[in-house]
Every structure is written in C-alpha cells, then in structure tokens.
C-alpha cells in the first residue's frame, strides 16, 4: 500500500499538469485532440486521486486530513470533483483549464510539502478517530474547496468583465460562459463554502468545549478561520443590503482566496499552536 501511495503522490501532480495542459489546448487553440481527450483524462486522474485518498484512509486508519499535505490534497480532490460535476452538468467545459490548474497547484503543494515535512506517518491522535472531529474537518475542507472554486470563477468573471467593459475582446471573450453564468457559479460556490464553513466553525466550537483544555480563541488558526468566515459572510450580506454587483463580490472572493492560502500554508505550518495538524 505504501508503495502505491508513494507512486501516486508523485504521479498525481504530473497527471493534473498534463490534464491542465490538455484543457489549455482546448481553451486557447480548440484542438480536436484536446476535445477528445481532456474529459476522459481528467476523470481518470480524479479516479486515481480517489484511490489515493482511500489508500491513505486504509493505510493510516483515519481521515486523510491530519497533515497540511493531506488537507491540501483533499481540497484539490474536492475542487476536481466539483469541476467534473460542473462539466458533466454541461455548463462550462471551457473553464476546465483554470480549475484544473488550481487543482494541480494544490496537489503540487501537497506533494512538495509532503516530501519536505514528513517522511513518516501522520500523527496518530485519538481525536482523528472521533466522528465529530471528522465532521468538523470534512466541513472545513469542503468549505475551503468551495471558496477555491468561487475564486476561479471570480478570476474568470473579472477577466471577462474587463474585456466587455473596455471592448477589448481578448482570448477570454467568446470562450467563457456568459458573465451572468460565471457570477451565478461564483455566488453559488460562496454560499456552499459559507454554509459548510459555518458548520465547521460551529462543530469546532462545540467539540473544543468538550476538550479538557479548551484552546485559546486567540490562536491564529481560529482567528484566520473566523476572518475568512466573516469576509465571505460580509460579501454575501453586502450583496443583499448594499446591492454589491458581481465585480465587488469577485474581488472579495479573490481576497478570501488569498487569506485561505495564507491560513492553509503559513498559519498551519508556522503560527498555530494546537491546530498544527490542519
């Protein structure tokens, strides 16, 4: 099993890179070869990724979210699954290059950090076997994945918005779904992320209460998570109250994405005390 996991760790970013290149040919050059191969290649890679995560569960007998590399890989997988669903639903195949590139980025980070940080097993703590904790972590990772998806659509929305505003008609024009569809997807992803992160915060607070030593609320991980939650919540509120348009929401989504990256990387690795496992 360990051999399979070692090989898959190397293979996954490479496979996602190839798939991203394939989708790139589809987006930039409308290559017939890419038309035929991009979707099956992505689905195959996602299946490999699924097998890898199942292998991690079997190997360590716990949720594959005990370390930052594992968490990044789960986020990458969740984004890939969301995109496979979006594509299957038939709304936006041309956004594949951008979403798969993000998946590649997260999986590459996972592999690099995995090689740098651990050469042994993930920490085996009792909490990782607690179903309530598993729910907390799953909700948090799903929320982050949804925010990553919203950031991808926010980026595309802004590109198209600028093109249409300036009458530039660059590469993005004519290849992306309509502006309204991109906005709906971005907002939909923010709602999913916000609801699941709310669940993660609530379950985290409830679970922390049960611990013998309640962690400090000033822990950077908690502060950053609450900041992310507040930022996206404020963006949704501003849409309702102040009639924020797509552009402002897209900017908020990209800002939130930056904070998430910082939280997942720097805070988890260097700043947090009790939350170092994720």
């Amino acid at each position, binding site marked *: 099993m360990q051999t399979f996991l070692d090989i898959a760790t190397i293979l996954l970013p490479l496979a996602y890179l190839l798939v991203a290149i394939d989708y790139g040919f589809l987006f930039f050059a*409308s290559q*017939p070869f890419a038309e035929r191969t991009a979707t099956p290649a992505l689905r195959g890679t996602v299946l490999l990724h699924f097998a890898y995560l199942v292998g991690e569960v079997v190997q360590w007998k716990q949720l594959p979210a005990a370390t930052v590399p594992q968490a990044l890989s789960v986020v990458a997988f969740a984004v890939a699954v969301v995109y496979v669903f979006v594509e299957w639903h038939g709304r936006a195949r041309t956004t594949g290059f951008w979403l798969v590139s993000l998946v590649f980025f997260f999986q590459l980070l996972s592999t690099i950090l995995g090689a740098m940080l651990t050469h042994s097993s993930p920490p085996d703590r009792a909490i990782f076997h607690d179903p309530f904790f598993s729910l907390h972590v799953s909700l948090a990772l799903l929320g982050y994945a949804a925010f990553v998806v919203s950031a991808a659509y926010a980026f595309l929305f802004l590109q*198209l918005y600028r093109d*249409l*505003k300036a*009458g530039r*008609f660059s590469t993005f*024009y*004519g290849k*992306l779904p*309509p*502006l*309204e*569809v991109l906005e*709906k997807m971005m907002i939909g992803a923010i709602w999913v992320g916000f609801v699941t992160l709310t669940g993660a915060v609530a379950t985290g607070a409830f679970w922390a209460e049960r611990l013998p030593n309640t962690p400090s609320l000033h822990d950077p991980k908690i502060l950053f998570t609450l900041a992310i939650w507040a930022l996206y919540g404020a963006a949704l509120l501003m*849409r309702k109250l102040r*009639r*924020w*348009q*797509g*552009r402002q929401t897209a900017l908020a989504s990209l800002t939130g994405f930056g904070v998430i990256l910082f939280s997942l990387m720097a805070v988890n690795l260097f700043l947090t005390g009790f939350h170092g496992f994720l």
Partner: protein
Amino acid sequence: MSSDSKSSPPSDLPLLLIGTDFRCSPLELRERVSFAKEEAEKALVHLLARAEVAEAFLLSTCNRTELYLQPRDEDGAYQAALDMVFLARAPELERPGRLYVKRNGEAARHLMAVASGLESMVLGEPEILGQVKQASVLAEAVGAEGPVLKRLLRSATSAGRRTRQETAISAGAVSIGYAIVELARQIFSGLEECRVLMVGAGEIAHSVTRPLLERGARELVVANRSLERAAQFKEEFPSAELVPFDRRQDEAAQADLVVVSTGADEPVLTRKHIAQAMRARPSRPLLVVDLGVPRNVEPAAGKVENVFLHTIDSLDLLIQRNLKRRRDEVPRAEEIIEQELHHFRAWFRALGAEPLIARLQKQAERIRQHELADALPRFPAETHADLERLTRSLVRKILHHPSSRLRDGADDLSRLDLVRELFHLDDDEIG
C-alpha cells in the same frame, strides 16, 4: 474569360463549370443572369435537350450564377451553356474577366468551396449551403442530375456541413445586428430572458431588431420621437411595445439591452440617466449599444458599475476580430475539401471498374452454380442448403479483395486489362 491552365489526365472528372460572381461582375450584370426557380427549370430542360450535355446543375444566388455540366462533348457543351445561360441574358459577360471556367477536379473543388462558404462575399456565411441544396433539389426534380453530379453535390454538401461543424469558419458575428446578439449572449444567460429597449425606430433599428428577435429576444420596447415612425416599426415587428420617448430613462431601468440609434445631435441618454436606471434595477448587468453618429449616449455612462457601453467602433472591432478568426480557419476548411474531393475521385474511379467487377462476379457465380449442380447429387439432400451457403460465402470472400483493389485502382487501365485477360472476361465461355 479565365480558365484553368492545368491539363488533366484523361480519366479525370468529366466536369465543366461556367460562372460569374460578385468578384467578376457588378450587380447589374449579376441580376440579369440570376434565375428564379421556374427560369432555372426551363434553362436546365433546354440544356439537357442538347446532345452535348449529359448532366447539368444551376446554382443561382444574389452573388453568383454557376452552371455545372457533365459534358458528352466538352466544346459543344461549353458553347451551348455559354450562349443559353449567360450571353443570351447579358452579352457584356463576354468581356474578359467577367466569367470563369473551371474543368475536372477544379470544378468539383470550386463547388465544395462554394458550399463551404469559402467563395462567399462574407466568408463562411451559412445561407449558401441551403441554396446549394435547393438548387440540387431543383436539378433532380427536372431530371438534370445524373449519377456524377448527384454524387458531386453529396460531396459538396458534406464538405459544407463538415467545415461548419469541424472548423470555426462560420463562428462569430460579422454584421452589426448579430454582433449585438453575440455581445448580449456573452453577458446574459439567455437572450430569451432579456428585455430589449430600442431608442429610435429608424432603418438601423429595423436591421438590428431582426436578428435580436430571430435569436430569441421576446420583450421588445420602442421609444421614438416620431409616432409615425414608431407605428411603422410596430407594423414590421408587431410584438414591439411602443412607449413615449420621454419614458426612455424609466424603460432603461427595466431593460437588459438598450440599443440607441437616433439622429439626435446630443446624447439622449446621459451618465446620470444610466446611473439612475441602475439604482432602480436589481443587480443585473445592462448592455447599452450606441449606434448613433454623433454619439447618442454620453461616453461617461460606460463608467457606471455593471454597465457595458458599446459603440459602432467597438462592434466593428468585434466584427473584424471574428472575420480574422474565420480567415484563420480557411486552411482547415481547405483540408476538409481536399478530403471530400479525394473521396469523390475515388468514387468516380470505382465507377469505371464497376462493369468489370460485375462481369467477374457473374462469371464466378456461373462457375459456382455449374460445379454445384455437378456435385449436389453426390451429397445427401439435407446438406444441400449448407453447401449452397458455403459456396456462396466462398465466392464472395474470394472476390472481395480483388473487387476492392479494382475499385481503388480503376484509373489504372493496365490493371483492368490484366484482370480481363486473366479471367477471360471478354469471352462468354467458361473455361
């Protein structure tokens, strides 16, 4: 008169094309050699009455008149077609450069290029494929299409369909009306849900409204100063709702797409109007297209959040971009045409081998029946049906490969002669 200088091998496609189009002739000449349906029927019937013409097909559109012939006698067919179809109606076409003549493979290639929109005034325009199909139906109805032209037209329509499906030769709008449709489709989920406000009801408004309605716009509101002109607009587009010109700002708040084309010297929609309209509407984008010269919408209106203001210049930029994309697709379209031409040539070559293949099969069948008749009495009756099936299958399988090779290499006369000699196909006696 231009003509292909390339000489073709004797076995090349027996085709002759005489035609004129927008590149060779002005409109006044083209309209004289333009054929309505009944006229085209008559012309084809008269042509077929000539001994020199075996098959004929006439394509007549506003931009071209082309006559395709499968001649029995090329010179005679050429002269007859020239006189009857072209010079009788427009003697000026005799002047050099007014007509083009293509022969053999070049004629076939030209028809495929026409059907693919490569020869059209607007590169890749879609209507021509339908016109080729209509002309084909007409030729078939009067019996002017024989096997060669029928197969050529099948290849041409296939080329036309493939170039549009497999390349971007018809992609993107290349007229103002469709450019607005394209812009709207890049902004809104669907044109069906868009409310369109036309400010101005002149000729430009008419030409823009047509593609918008054709592509699904349902709600149409018109604000025009002159009620008379607004009524004319309503007459042409009965689904349009007329509103007073003064209400244009209120209507802009309800609309998704505003097209402004008035003769006003000053902006009829200002930044203030648009900003107020945006405040009064839910957070939905607004596409404003200003087709007026001088401009009818204050340029600063484009700075309002979620407002996309486009002028005649930006639409022209879009059209030029789309035209360039279409031009870039020409080599891929030409590849498809070459493939279809290759298939057509192969079919034509195979046509020459068919009589020989038929004789070969007939001879084999006679041998089979002869041998079977001798053999069957020696076998039990219940095996006869199996033996019949077995021998048929054997003959079919033995002849399959030689038949295919004969069809593929039907232009190689020595090969046909060899087969004829090897199997005594000129001799009715079975050895």
